[in-house]
């Protein structure tokens, strides 16, 4: 229900155009692999004529969503609606859902229920084309042949389903000529025209990426799905890619892309959907998403997401951290663990200045809390102005709490595992909202982890922290995590 609740939140999408005229609607999509929930009740819309970006940390379930949309996976639950022609066509969608049919088409409108269609039919009928994260070209065929294979279905009809073609009927020759023209058009657009007769496997990496896009475009798609198109490109190629995508949008094809390169995403996207652990945490324009606290938290709280490329998010982190600034820096006992990368050690170093003493500090933090307390649902957990006698616990030993969040928890007076261990449902809800982490505390079971740690035991995650494999707010310590 989290996804739906979020979608309903007014701040996110007040009458955005992608909700008014979506080409693709993903509704309550859930994908489970055995016990693993890769995508959990996800809903979002892709606006007609928009460039929509799907972003999120590694393992957030982006590619799974793609594979569901393009039919390579059958979703466990949910509905995926593809629309040709303007408007929601809600009536047709509802009728179709009840009917058990896969699609319905009238003159200039059509509705497809993608979750019912096999992959090749989605490409052929619903006109959804895609590229792959690890490029999948026909390496032993020439660039031109790759583009002709993409026009298979039209050419198949023109060749009279092979029979006419074998007999050498003239219709096919003409159709092939047109297909080559279309291929040439896209080859020119992608700067590949000089390599048309070379095997695709011979092209350099960037050109292969462009060829894959050209090939997808040759199928004449209404929606183009790109799985990390900028991965491995140099800055110049990246810029060219932006121009290409904008050109594709101008031709009337909507674009849905997964991307890690925030430069690309922020620059060209009309609409961004952010996933974390298979759940949508933000949805809106680039402007909205970049200032969304949840996005910042997601990108920071996750221990294995070492690099953050977005300057805006970095700035936001700074702000969050500075909220609790009036503290005196304290020297860490040991040097930071080796494994920390540039950005996390940065976050770590700020977090390491954990508040230790001083009236001023506690006053400042309680003030902060008081100001915000009312805005969060649930009950604010009891906190103390300063840590107990033994010093604060290293809360980052709990899987899911990163340095930034430890900072924020300290700010509301949470210093010890025992405090977290005593949280009830209401407190969890409050903290979840406070950290912009709805649902995550339960999922990662912070309370249980905290209970174990408070009792002096170890968890699988804390062991990783202690051995220095995960960036932490303290140098690795074995005993209880007291800093």
């Amino acid at each position, binding site marked *: 229900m989290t996804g739906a609740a979020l979608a309903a939140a007014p701040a996110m999408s007040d009458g955005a155009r992608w909700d008014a005229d979506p080409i693709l609607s993903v509704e309550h999509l859930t994908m489970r692999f055995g016990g693993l929930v890769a995508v959990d009740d996800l809903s979002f819309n892709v606006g007609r004529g928009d460039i929509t970006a799907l972003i999120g940390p590694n393992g957030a379930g982006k590619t799974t969503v793609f594979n569901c949309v*393009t039919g*390579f996976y059958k979703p466990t639950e949910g509905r995926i609606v593809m629309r040709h022609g303007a408007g929601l066509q809600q009536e047709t969608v509802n009728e179709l859902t009840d009917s058990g049919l896969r699609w319905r088409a009238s003159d200039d409108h059509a509705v497809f229920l993608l979750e019912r269609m096999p*992959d*090749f*039919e989605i*490409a*052929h009928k619903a006109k959804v*084309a*895609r590229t*792959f994260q690890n490029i*999948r*070209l*026909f*390496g*032993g*065929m*020439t660039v*031109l*042949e790759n583009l*002709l*294979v*993409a*026009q*298979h*279905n039209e*050419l*198949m009809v023109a*060749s009279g389903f*092979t029979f006419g*073609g*074998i007999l*050498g009927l003239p219709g*096919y020759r003409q159709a*092939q000529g047109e297909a*080559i023209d279309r291929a*040439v058009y896209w080859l020119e657009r992608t700067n590949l025209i000089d390599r*048309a*007769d*070379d*095997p695709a*496997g*011979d092209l350099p990496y960037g050109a292969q990426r462009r060829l894959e896009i050209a*090939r*997808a475009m040759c*199928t004449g798609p209404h929606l183009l799905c790109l799985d990390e198109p900028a991965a491995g490109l140099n800055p110049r190629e990246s810029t060219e890619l932006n121009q290409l995508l904008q050109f594709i949008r101008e031709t009337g094809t909507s674009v849905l892309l997964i991307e890690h390169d925030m430069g690309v995403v922020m620059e060209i996207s009309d609409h961004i959907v952010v996933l974390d652990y298979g759940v949508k945490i933000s949805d809106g324009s680039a402007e909205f998403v970049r200032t969304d606290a949840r996005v910042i938290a997601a990108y920071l709280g996750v221990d294995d997401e070492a690099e953050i490329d977005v300057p805006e998010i970095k700035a936001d982190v700074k702000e969050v951290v500075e909220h609790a600034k009036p503290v005196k820096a304290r020297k860490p006992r040991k040097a930071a663990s080796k494994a920390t990368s540039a950005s996390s050690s940065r976050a770590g170093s700020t977090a390491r200045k954990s508040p230790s003493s001083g009236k001023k500090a506690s006053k400042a933090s309680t003030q902060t809390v008081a100001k915000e307390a009312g805005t969060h649902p649930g009950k604010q957990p009891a906190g103390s102005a300063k840590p107990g006698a033994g010093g604060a616990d290293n809360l980052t030993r709990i899987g899911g709490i990163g340095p930034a969040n430890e900072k924020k928890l300290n700010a509301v007076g949470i210093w010890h595992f025992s405090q977290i261990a005593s949280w009830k449902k209401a407190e969890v809800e409050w903290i979840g909202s406070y950290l912009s982490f709805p649902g995550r505390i339960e999922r990662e079971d912070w309370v249980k982890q905290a209970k174990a740690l408070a009792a002096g035991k170890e968890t699988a995650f804390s062991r990783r922290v202690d051995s220095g494999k995960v960036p932490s707010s303290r140098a690795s310590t074995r005993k209880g995590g007291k800093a």
Partner: protein
Amino acid sequence: MAVAQRTGLGAAIEPNAYAASLKDAAMAAFLVAVLGFFFLPLRTDIAPGGLAITYRWPIWVAAILIVFGGRLLLNLFVFKARKPITRTIGEQMSGSSLRVPGLGRALGMALFVFAAILPFFITAVFPAQQRQFIDLAILIMTYIMLGWGLNIVVGLAGLLDLGYVAFYAVGAYSFALLAEYFGLGFWMALPLAGILAAFWGVILGFPVLRLRGDYLAIVTLAFGEIIRIVLLNWYEFTNGPDGISGIPKPTLFGLEFTRGDDGFAAFFGLEYSTIHRFIFLYYIIFVLAIITNFVTIRLRKLPVGRAWEALREDEIACRSLGINTTNTKLTAFAIGAMFGGFAGSFFATRQGFISPESFTFLESAIILAIVVLGGLGSQVGVVIASVVMIGGIELLRNIGFLSQIFGPDFDPVQYRMLIFGLAMVAIMVWKPRGLITTRNPSAVLKERKKIGADMVSQGEGH
């Protein structure tokens, strides 16, 4: 160390290579002694009162010595030599030929013309052995056709089919049974046999085509065996191991190749000769093979052919482009099977007698070997491989001088398959991608460029 020492042997060899070569040759000889011990000097034979062992120590010693000497020479001149003589030969060969653009096409045309006049060439040049040579030409042409048919499945679509002989059998038995039960002639039965084989291709293909690589291979092998076992045991219908005889001979627009007044010879005012019928059979299989080739070349330039090759390269990408991969695989299977069926009914009419023994796994293996040795997907490669493998093996039958060396008991025929197998291994080790390794693009914008074999993938789950 880097200074090469010229030696009297004519090949530059590392200073201590003699010792190494000797040691290596000794190892090889020892291995042969071990491997051969239970087979060369000792032979179990049925004797009164059970099995008895006969001893043939000279053969064992001879084998060991031959391997020792052969390995030593190979070491000195090829393996351990600075400049192996094979490389010199290879340079000379590749330097002079095979680099000329358009050679493949020219070679194809030359082969075509040669094949078209072959029977007359044979009758003119070898009048004494014309029947035998034309028979051999027919056999080779049959394998060429089978190779081309299988090339569609394995070479283009990349589906590993180890049971291709099943469709050959279906074609042969279709014709034989249609003739026996309905009295159909060759020309009437030929298309039906092809259609039936294609139909079986679809029936067998449908459930198994979603299997990958080796699983597909083993299931097709199993299907091939199933069909053979059924033919062998369904006595009432197929006459079981006794086979079907009296299969009608083909006619030329109703003209039979008989001695009578209404025969072919009498109609054209020629003197009757049995060779006419062989020449006629040759042209039937020649035309059938050329049709196979023509259709395959056409198909490659059609969307379905391109889809086959794309399927071989990357099935998932194909699906993302809207290609129904199941149907595409089925068409490859069915069209390949159809040509197998045509070849099968030709086989039946040529032999006049068929039995399940002609359709063993060995046949499938030989056809597959021809396709792979020729170079996957290459039409000319299939021709070369068929001529080399089938022609070469059949020629062994006729080598009389070997029995002068090895004595009158020596029968080269029984070594035929042994040499065939060794040749298969040797050629494959020498040229793992087959003889013709480049791929011709099916569509060209400006300039036709050949695609090297290292680019082209081999299909199904590799």
